[in-house]
């Protein structure tokens, strides 16, 4: 018996690593749903301090994007918030594993006043789990946030729960994804921007075979992706939308229907002919981007903002570069509809156990005013930029930080871009505005996604016949009750 206990003790210690620290408190906060008066600096100028400093207002923020780019700059960022709002803010910006950090913090009863998220599926789960404060009265009563010029009314639908309550506030404007092409390669090879599936094929084949980078080697690919991230612009040709689609009240996944078969076959043809980067199954998005930036591939599928980032990065490395990235529209389906993907927004929640919800609400209003937007985009005055009269000038640090301290783009139409957008971004965002819609992630999507990706990637890479892959995908989803038909 003694031996058994000794063994159990040994195993128990070793197994501790298996278990997350689930120590918890039943975090509740009576003040969570109280609404503070709106902040009073909504119309302040870009670098004007708060008119009335908030007395004793503290704020603890957990976020992935907002703040300084280094710990030192983060400290200055906090001081700048204090200068502009009077709020004594503390920003925690984990270097990695952000989702785990959020979950651990919430599960262990840690008290944050604001948490930044970017997954609507997770928001719905947090609402169900009692994590999120109801912000309906605050948002509708706020002169700043209820102004359609600050946040378009239709956009708020994304941040309402199933009962129509506002449960979060936007952090920035989030765009969408699309095919991004080397326009300079198109011009060099005398090709037009592709519109149809056949035209796309011809362009991609030319990128592979006609030495677009002019180095005399057959070392370029037409297309690269990072698994199914994000082929929506191509799948649009077959009229199929990614993730779940509700059809007559039933859950369907169009990627698992026969309509998707020709598209998987089209990708398999690209792979077979060496037009597509063969590493697309194992690529992460960083590898995909690097291939594009290093003249190895002529087209990738990525975010609108990256059109500008691509152009800017190459321009900074070589001011005489001919490199030109350009966004392409998705391919129209049989009925002429173009399906593109709108990304889940970045947004703030006030956890139900927040100790300073009033400060959090004041900050949320500030974040959507010109001073807040300037801080979130350009950064810190005299650190990232200087200002003479109405003219802004980026410092070397500011140039390096690419005008992104959590808010590269914003909704507020009253706030103009001091330097304009990076080349190609506006055109890309126009395509998103015109064609893109959000994806619907229902409970069970993580399980469904594994099945969809498994068979879709096998079909695309030529490991499995596309029709058979779709048949098995559909059967497995149905068998595991992840779709209704």
């Amino acid at each position, binding site marked *: 018996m003694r031996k058994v206990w000794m063994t159990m003790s040994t195993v128990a210690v070793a197994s501790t690593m298996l278990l997350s620290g689930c120590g918890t408190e039943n975090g*509740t906060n009576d003040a969570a749903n109280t609404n503070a008066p709106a902040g009073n600096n909504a119309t302040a100028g870009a670098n004007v301090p708060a008119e009335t400093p908030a007395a004793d207002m503290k704020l603890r923020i957990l976020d992935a994007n907002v703040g300084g780019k280094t710990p030192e700059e983060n400290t200055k960022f906090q001081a700048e918030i204090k200068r502009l709002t009077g709020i004594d803010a503390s920003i925690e910006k984990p270097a990695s594993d952000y989702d785990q950090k959020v979950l651990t913090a919430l599960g262990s009863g840690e008290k944050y006043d604001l948490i930044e998220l970017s997954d609507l599926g997770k928001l719905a789960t947090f609402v169900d789990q009692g994590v999120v404060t109801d912000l309906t009265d605050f948002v509708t009563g706020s002169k700043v946030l209820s102004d359609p010029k600050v946040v378009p009314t239709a956009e708020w639908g994304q941040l309402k729960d199933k009962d129509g309550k506002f449960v979060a506030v936007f952090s920035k404007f989030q765009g969408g994804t699309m095919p991004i092409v080397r326009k300079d390669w198109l011009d060099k090879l005398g090709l037009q921007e592709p519109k149809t599936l056949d035209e796309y094929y011809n362009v991609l084949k030319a990128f592979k075979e006609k030495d677009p980078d002019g180095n005399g080697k057959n070392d370029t690919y037409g297309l690269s992706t990072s698994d199914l991230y994000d082929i929506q612009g191509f799948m649009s040709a077959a009229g199929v939308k990614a993730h779940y689609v509700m059809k007559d009240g039933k859950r369907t996944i169009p990627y698992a229907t026969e309509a998707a078969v020709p598209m998987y076959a089209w990708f398999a043809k690209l792979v077979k002919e060496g037009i597509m980067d063969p590493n697309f199954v194992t690529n992460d998005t960083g590898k995909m981007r690097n291939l594009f930036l290093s003249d190895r591939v002529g087209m990738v599928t990525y975010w609108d903002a990256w059109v500008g980032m691509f152009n800017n990065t190459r321009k900074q490395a070589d001011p005489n570069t001919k490199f030109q990235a350009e966004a392409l529209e998705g391919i129209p389906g049989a009925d002429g509809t173009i399906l593109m993907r709108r990304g889940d927004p970045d947004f703030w929640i006030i956890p139900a156990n927040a100790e300073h919800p009033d400060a959090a609400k004041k900050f949320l209003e500030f974040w959507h005013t010109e001073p807040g937007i300037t801080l979130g985009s350009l950064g810190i005055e005299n650190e990232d930029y200087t200002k003479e009269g109405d003219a802004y000038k980026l410092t070397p640090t500011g140039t390096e930080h690419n005008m992104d301290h959590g808010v590269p783009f914003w909704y507020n139409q009253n706030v103009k871009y001091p330097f304009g957008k990076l080349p190609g971004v506006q055109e890309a965002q126009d395509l998103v505005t015109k064609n893109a819609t959000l994806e619907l992630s229902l409970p069970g999507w993580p399980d469904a996604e594994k099945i969809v990706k498994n068979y879709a990637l096998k079909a695309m890479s030529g490991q499995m016949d596309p029709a058979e892959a779709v048949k098995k995908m559909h059967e497995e989803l149905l068998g595991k009750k992840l779709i209704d038909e």
Partner: protein
Amino acid sequence: MGLLKKYGALYLMMVPVIAYFIVFAYYPLVKGLQTSFQDYKLMGDRPYVGFANYDAVLHDSLFWEAMVNTLVIGGGILLFSFIAPLVIALSLNEVLRTWFKKMAQMILYVPHLLSWVVVGGIWIFMLSPDSGIVNMILVHVFHRAPINFLADSGYARWIMILLSTWKEMGYTCILFLAGIVSINPSLYEAARMDGATRWQQLTYVTLPQLSNTMKVVFLLNTLGILRIFDQVFILRNPTIASKVDVLMMYTFQKGILEIKLGPAAAASFFVLVLTLALTLVVRRMTRFDEV
């Protein structure tokens, strides 16, 4: 009381150690066990639901898929990461040139120092179908078509087993070499005087004398086989997920991605109980208590 007076200082020194294990090991363990019996929400009430979480896990086909993968991959790693370093340690022991022995040990040990993020990155690159050295050899030397090893479910489990063996081989090899060094040289002298060949010295002296080290290594490896996570997390992709997703990946998906902490905790305790059972079996089979 007399003992307490006599050894008071020693007991005092043990307090931080005991406190450490209570706070960082046993308390989370107990809380995890509690969570596995709750309808666990991040905030608000967390009612007890009996064995519902365990029931949900046991009726989840993905759990059983993960169980099979864990046993196959873990079993493979257990076997290969025991035999390969043993063979190498015995081989190195036969090498007379010290510089070569030390150099080989160092080279073998280096992968153990690297994190799975680095090792995974290296091998994803090495196995790449267009620029990886493995496929370049296949294409240019053997005139074969390139193979996308990490996207082919037929190779997936073997890759996990072999990479883990490769990474940890140097570390285990050092343990074996340390065991070999501690063998009494007079046993070899006696064997040589009796006319034993090198092979006979190996089979009749080295291996029997090394058996205790082998038992310890085997037991330590057994403790880890159900906890495989990092390498799978780094090397997996959707096309091979169904062949390599192990129990810890299942727990990660339930707990972190789906925020179903009750079932995740229940799955963790299955791992705990299985590890306990496996350990007891291995102890009994190897007569570990005689070490």
